[in-house]
């Protein structure tokens, strides 16, 4: 009896020790900084300046950091826009079909149907360069020269009456352009902005429960059985 208990306690101590060792192992591995000397794993290759230069396309909206060398005028932008952009965005940025409108909409942000354009909504001018450069023209993105992108940026800003016709966009001029809607953004999430309480019974007067809108018979819903719907724009 005694021996057996003693044996058990040895086993249990050993188990505890093992468990402790295992736990230490886990702590070491999972600890966020313990192993964290740069190059600890040593996988991959150190990025060369040339590699970085090829992909380092981002331009910061706030201060224009990352804007490349180059320059573009409003008038040159007009002709690049006609060639590269007008098919979707319209000659004057009015937007063809359901493609985005780039100009106008000033003063509509409180309206029932606000028009969010570069002029009425975008808070930072360098973002316009960044976006055209990275994502446009849609069928052949990131193929325009920096000069062409500067020219398009200047033209679109001019379409929105933000810069004069003789404006020339470059890495110094663009960050100085103050966008009309710049000050209307709150960059800190104020949510939660509702504070409902979980009432469980008699939470409302039945007479007050009224259907205010229904999707029935609105004819906006594509079918959800059979082949894909090809419902046309409304």
């Amino acid at each position, binding site marked *: 009896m005694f021996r057996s208990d003693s044996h058990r306690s040895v086993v249990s101590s050993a188990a505890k020790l093992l468990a402790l060792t295992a736990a230490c192992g886990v702590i070491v591995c999972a600890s966020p900084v313990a192993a964290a000397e740069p190059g600890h794993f040593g996988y991959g290759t150190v990025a060369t300046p040339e590699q970085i230069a090829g992909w380092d396309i981002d331009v910061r*909206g706030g201060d224009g950091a990352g804007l490349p060398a180059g320059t573009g005028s409003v008038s040159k932008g007009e002709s690049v826009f006609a060639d590269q952009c007008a098919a979707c965005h319209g000659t004057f940025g009015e937007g063809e079909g359901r493609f985005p409108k780039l100009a106008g909409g000033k003063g509509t942000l409180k309206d029932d149907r606000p028009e969010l354009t570069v002029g009425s909504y975008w808070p930072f001018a360098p973002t316009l360069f960044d976006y055209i450069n990275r994502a446009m023209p849609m069928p052949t993105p990131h193929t325009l020269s920096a000069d062409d992108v500067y020219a398009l940026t200047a033209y679109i800003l001019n379409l929105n009456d933000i810069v004069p016709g003789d404006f020339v966009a470059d890495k110094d001029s663009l960050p100085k352009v103050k966008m009309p809607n710049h000050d209307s953004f709150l960059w800190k999430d104020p949510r939660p902005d509702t504070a409902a309480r979980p009432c469980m019974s008699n939470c409302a007067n039945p007479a007050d*429960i009224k259907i205010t809108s229904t*999707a029935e018979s609105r004819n906006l819903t594509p079918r959800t059985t059979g082949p894909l719907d090809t419902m046309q724009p409304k």
Partner: protein
Amino acid sequence: MPPNFWRSLPVVSKSAARRNPVLARRSFLGLGAALTGTFALDAARAETAEISPPADAPWSQSLGAGVVDRPYGTPAETEAGVIRRNVPWLTAGTESSISFSPLQDLNGIITPNGLFFERYHAGRPDVDPEQHRLMIHGLVERPLVLTMKDILRFPSVSRIHFIECPANGGMEWRAAQLNSLQFTHGMVSCAEWTGVKLSTLLEEVGLKKEAKWVMVEGADGAHMNRSLPLEKCLDDCLIVYAQNGEALRPEQGYPLRLVVPGWEGNVSVKWLRRIKVGDQPWFSREETSKYTDLMADGTSRGFTWLIDAKSVITFPCPEKPLSGPGLYEIRGLAWTGNGKVKAVHVSTDGGINWQVAQLHEPILSKALTRFSIPWRWDGKPALLESRVIDETGYVQPTIVDLRKQRGTNSVYHNNSIQTWQVKPDGSVFDVQIG
């Protein structure tokens, strides 16, 4: 012997078709696929009484297809209508657009990979994993270029998380518009993601002390980019290469994507190719002109990343009506970017009275959670609603509450309570009440 030798014997297939009207009708179903799910089953039941008990069904009296008949499995033909769907009138084309997951036909918390909702900004790129690279640079000690093989060597983790587009429900701010669970809520999906913790990679490159923000960028034509605060990157972000056990689907970012748990889907950049560490946010187009919330007073909220708690009843719903009075199980999904779902309440009278629904395991942080509650429907009109409370105590609001705070123009982050109207004939409609 050819793979389907026995099946291809004329006598077997003919007699099977003769005895089995379902098989005979297969070509019709396959072509039109007009009847799916419940409807297909009902139709089949009506026509196949002769194979119901006591008769033995033809598939019980014949030899089925062999292994590797379908080396990569596919759903049953009768499920052909369970697909992602889009709203063609919503966007100029399909390349910069969205599709919706068929929540009405899904059960459980995991979205099958082929049904995970899609969001593209420049179409779905076909990325060669051999050529794909992840570059990490900026305010780091040791900028790196990693191949997929390199990334697979890092310590790996698996986590189950939902991803929701913040525009899910965006068409319902003003009024009930789309009579469909798929189209009102289908821009949420949930998967098990496997990959490397972003914190592991950031430690490997070594952060400089000025580091505060991280820009992530895709390899697609949009070169989609977003800014993330470093704190979130070090907390729970994942760089993943696998989804539900297999390689990511091209639609979800093959071969590599970011998963930012609990935050709006747009920041979980797909086809991830670059991570740049900086000291300020970038204010990219996707976080200024898009994915910002326009308030009624003309001001806008930016960096509204969190997906607030939300729930929806997935049965019944407009696509899955009731078939006469009787006992039903109301089922649904709840989720929150704030952690775990704490409780879900269900009302059948438009929010006058509520009952506590049962939550089903597993209840995971920042993952879809199932709920259900039995309901005996008396055949009278009903207004079904669900309301989630998350672990912070936050209660899912009504659309009326949200409109009071934000107006109707904000597009994003509509996490309001959904109301389904049940009519005496069992049909279900998307409505709003006030």
